């Protein structure tokens, strides 16, 4: 299995944005996306407020159960968002899969992006033997790709 992650393509010299994420969490996102393929998979990774570090993976139901659309179940979302509040966490990463197209935000993704502080991670499962994983900021309709720094906690700690 091979992984393709893309570096920042931002040529405007903005603050170097990067998503630092544990390899075990990346593996779990990919496993979730593979499990639900050909439907789109989606979820959240919570982290301590202000840390910008995703630590707790929460796979969510795709209420739309569709190959081209995903939608959190509104009641599950309320429960998970409350839980994050209680734990002093925030949604650091919101991820979903594209199952037949590249890992780049669609117009639908951009219109719905409602967490300006989150990293939007997209996984493409269109190839059966490799995944493309990319991360973006989506703020006010503007998409900025960022680098993904995958760390191995067993080495990093």
């Amino acid at each position: 299995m091979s992984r393709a992650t893309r570096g920042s393509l931002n040529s405007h010299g903005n603050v170097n944005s990067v998503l630092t994420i544990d390899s075990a969490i990346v593996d779990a996102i990919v496993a979730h996306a593979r499990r639900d393929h050909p439907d789109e998979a989606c979820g959240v990774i919570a982290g301590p407020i202000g840390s910008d570090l995703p630590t707790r993976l929460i796979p969510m139901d795709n209420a739309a159960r569709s190959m081209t659309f995903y939608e959190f179940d509104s009641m599950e979302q309320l429960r998970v968002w409350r839980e994050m509040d209680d734990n002093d966490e925030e949604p650091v990463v919101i991820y979903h899969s594209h199952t037949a197209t590249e890992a780049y935000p669609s117009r639908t993704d951009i219109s719905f992006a409602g967490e300006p502080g989150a990293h939007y991670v997209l996984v493409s499962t269109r190839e059966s033997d490799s995944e493309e994983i990319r991360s973006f900021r989506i703020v006010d309709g503007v998409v900025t790709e960022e680098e993904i720094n995958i760390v191995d906690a067993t080495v990093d700690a």
Partner: protein
Amino acid sequence: MAIEVRVPTILRSYTGGAKTVEGAGETLSALIDDLDTKHNGLKGRLITTEGGLHRFVNIYVNDEDVRFLGALDAKLSDGDSITILPAVAGGALGFAAAAALLGR
């Protein structure tokens, strides 16, 4: 009549950064009108030009999605707690999926 409203990050530009605001109204519709007088522009982010609830947000009364409570006609009582969350949704474009389906 005081109703507490929890505002998500993306709408806090309308509330001067406040996470929680207070409003009044006997229905969700009346509450949103009241909020808009104090936080100008908020209504436009919650209600479409056709007058329905925006698909980009979820609004809850206590623990229930207002879509199950009559949406904008949902009745409110003193002490109710309203939570607004951005709806999390998206997905690949339709035509790309259609192309993939044809390819199988």
